[in-house]
């Protein structure tokens, strides 16, 4: 069978920097190829090049897509290829549709540009494809604006736009990264379904090995602009050739691996949360209502234990974190920390290590600040020791946050949280913004520090696999409530609540 997409020795250069360094691959009709890589691997540049969408890069090699030589094509040929031959779905569903126009009109417009159909035909087509991608009540929703759609629905609308043109290849660049895991699962099912139905090929670009393994037939692993390995998914997973692939696979946390933790926790309770509730007032005046972000939550955490809290966006898990560290006051209920209840005993590691460090203060200063506030002796010396402990060069005390990588910044955040020797550490999505291999290192560091500093951890994340890896017990949150709380092994092995089951079923497995 002749491939619908073939790429030979593709090189993409931005000024003096080479983002893609000689990548070759082929994609057959109806086939799904996954491109996996960490940030900076060049996978997104590769995707954009397939449609000739780079404006400021030097692209060499050969790209033949749906019968068009992309690098030699005239503007008009390229225009026909875009959408008609190869269609693309982007990462951020929030911004990839025009906020001013109705969803149906946008699809119809693209359809008309390629087919010259009448307005009426195009409008009907838009409704038809929206219906096909599973938008309920498509005729009515076609008249809605993008902001009235949820993230998953916007992504479906974009797929519908592609579908209307019946392309031979669909390129999806991190299509589910911004979505919740259950939404992601349904979207990936839709892609499978469409592929089987229409025979279009799929090029799926993702940082998530699980997503690729679940969806693709073959996988291409990229690192620093090079293809380090290429082959059928099953074979690469079972028997990776390249060291990098092996490392990457080892670093991926799994929901189905034997539990990382089989400790017996016998300490006395350190954190006791009872009847905790937090309301936020919203809505137009006169019709203002209090919405409970956290509703009647109660649990205990023993000394030395790690409690994991998982939930999708809007489940109230971040509000809970802020309530525990008392950045927010509860509407009702109590948060008690055993002992003399000093505020310094409870510290927090934040999600975004970029935003949680003041860009105008040196990292050493950031770590020493809590010590200075509390009048501890020799704050600078302690800060340097902490830097060394979390794996940073103490000599970089005077460097600013932007001089560090994301992983290093999170180490700074951890060192700052430890400066006051807290007893309880609340980690809110501490590794979400990091690449898998960096993730593994930071998680390893946290585990070491927990032993060394006798820490009790509350670990909050949307990622079920990560939570499983670090937690003794796990709580599942939904709509502000804890729906299930059990030992990690038990919760993942035999979930009791239907929502927990649904979440676990949605996680793509390796």
């Amino acid at each position, binding site marked *: 069978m002749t491939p619908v997409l073939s790429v030979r020795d593709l090189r993409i250069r931005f000024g003096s920097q080479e983002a893609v360094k000689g990548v070759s691959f082929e994609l057959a009709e109806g086939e799904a190829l996954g491109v996996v890589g960490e940030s900076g691997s060049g996978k997104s540049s590769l995707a954009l090049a397939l449609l000739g969408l780079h404006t400021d890069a030097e692209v060499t090699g050969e790209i033949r897509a749906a019968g068009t030589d992309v690098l030699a094509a005239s503007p008009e040929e390229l225009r026909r290829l875009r959408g008609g031959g190869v269609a693309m779905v982007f990462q951020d569903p929030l*911004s990839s*549709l*025009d*906020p001013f126009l109705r969803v149906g009109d946008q699809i119809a417009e*693209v359809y008309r*540009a390629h087919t010259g159909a009448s307005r009426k035909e195009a409008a009907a087509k838009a409704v038809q494809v929206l219906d096909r991608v599973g938008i309920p009540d498509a005729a009515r929703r076609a008249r809605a*604006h993008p902001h009235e759609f949820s993230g998953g629905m916007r992504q479906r609308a974009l797929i519908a736009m592609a579908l209307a043109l019946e392309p031979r290849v669909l390129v999806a660049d991190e299509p589910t990264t911004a979505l919740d895991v259950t939404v992601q699962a349904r979207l990936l099912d839709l892609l499978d379904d469409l592929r089987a139905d229409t025979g279009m090929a799929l090029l799926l670009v993702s940082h998530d090995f699980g997503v690729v393994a679940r969806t693709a037939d073959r996988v291409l692993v990229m690192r620093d602009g090079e293809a380090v390995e290429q082959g059928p998914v099953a074979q690469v997973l079972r028997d990776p050739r390249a060291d990098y692939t092996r490392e990457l696979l080892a670093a991926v946390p799994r929901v189905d691996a034997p539990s990382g933790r089989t400790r017996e926790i016998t300490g006395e309770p350190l954190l006791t949360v009872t009847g905790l509730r937090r309301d936020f007032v919203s809505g137009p005046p006169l019709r203002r209502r209090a919405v409970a972000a956290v509703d009647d939550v109660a649990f205990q955490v023993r000394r030395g234990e790690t409690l994991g809290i998982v939930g999708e966006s809007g489940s109230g898990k971040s509000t809970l974190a802020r309530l525990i560290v008392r950045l927010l006051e509860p509407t009702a209920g109590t948060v008690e920390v055993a002992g003399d209840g000093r505020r310094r005993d409870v510290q927090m590691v934040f999600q975004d290590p970029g935003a949680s460090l003041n860009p105008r203060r040196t990292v050493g200063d950031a770590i020493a600040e809590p010590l200075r506030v509390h009048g501890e002796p020799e704050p600078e010396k302690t800060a340097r020791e902490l830097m060394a402990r979390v794996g940073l060069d103490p000599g970089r005390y005077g460097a600013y946050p932007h001089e560090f990588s994301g992983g290093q910044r999170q180490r700074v955040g951890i060192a700052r949280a430890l400066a006051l020797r807290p007893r309880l550490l609340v980690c809110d999505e501490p590794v979400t913004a990091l690449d898998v291999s960096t993730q593994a290192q930071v998680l390893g560091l946290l585990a070491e520090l927990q032993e060394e500093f006798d820490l009790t951890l509350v670990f909050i994340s949307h990622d079920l696999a990560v939570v499983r890896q670090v937690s003794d017990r796990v709580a599942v949150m939904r709509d502000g409530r804890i729906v299930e709380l059990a030992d990690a092994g038990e919760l993942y092995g035999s979930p009791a609540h239907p929502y927990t089951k649904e979440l676990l079923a949605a996680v793509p497995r390796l």
Partner: protein
Amino acid sequence: MTWYLLRRLGAVVTVLLVLSAIVYALFYLTPGDPAVLACGRGCNAERLALTREKLGLAEPVYAQYWHFLEGLVAGRDYAAGPDVDHCAAPCLGYSFQSDQPVLQLITSRFPVSLSLAFGAEVVALLLGVSAGLLSALRQGRPEERLLTGVTLVGYATPVFLVGLLLLMVFCAYLQWLPFPAYVPLTENPGEWARNLILPWAALGLIQAAVFARITRAGALETLVEDHIRTFRAYGLRERQVIRRHALRGALTPLITITAVEVAQMMTASVLTETMFGLPGVGRLTVESVGSVDLPVVVGVTLLAGTAVVLSNAVADVLSAVADPRVKLI
């Protein structure tokens, strides 16, 4: 939406009440006898006493302000014995210097200001928006450098300087146009326009530079948005991408900015009218300030404040209409 409008109207009224109180206080409680000021130049003892009685200055200040508010709603009479000056609602005050209600003075000058503002705004929008868009779309080309350069020069020049230069070139040197003298539109439309060309150009060019900068910034911002990339990736022609998807995003902020610019526009109008000797409201203000005709100054300031507050409210509603994401709550 209804609720929003009601609330917004309430806010407008509140702001105007406070504004009127402050302006009133500022001008009537300043050192100097308000009666002397209201009476104006060429005042004698007899007229002064009369004015004092008409103004009701014997009453406490809050009562005077209350009468002022009453006058706004119901009109009022300034009476001293048999001598009564009537001021119909909405009464903004009475100019004893020119023996006319303030509102009447202002409305008689208003057509001039409106003529000036209308033409200038047309020039400003046409020139400004197209220059701004063009320089954003032709990024990195010589046209862009030229346009941004011209825009910068326009932006940095005060309107009266532009006016003076235009006068020097077109009236004095080339002698193509007369020194502007206002002719009402109803009298002779041709002369109306011919006399207003220079004022329109002066005020319009300055305003165009402001619009060009805003439009350019808006267009540059929109052009790098993700949804523009989507439509390029779906094979729309570049012209269509710009026309259908970039323009709207680039131009919507202009609604708000135009409203904010109303205050600036008034400033520039005052200067332009003075510069060209046009008998508009701006000129009236300058004259009243010169002759210390306080009731007129208070009236103009209040009306101008009202215009600023109202235009902001209108712009907010229009923005919500233009941008489906904006909710009015």
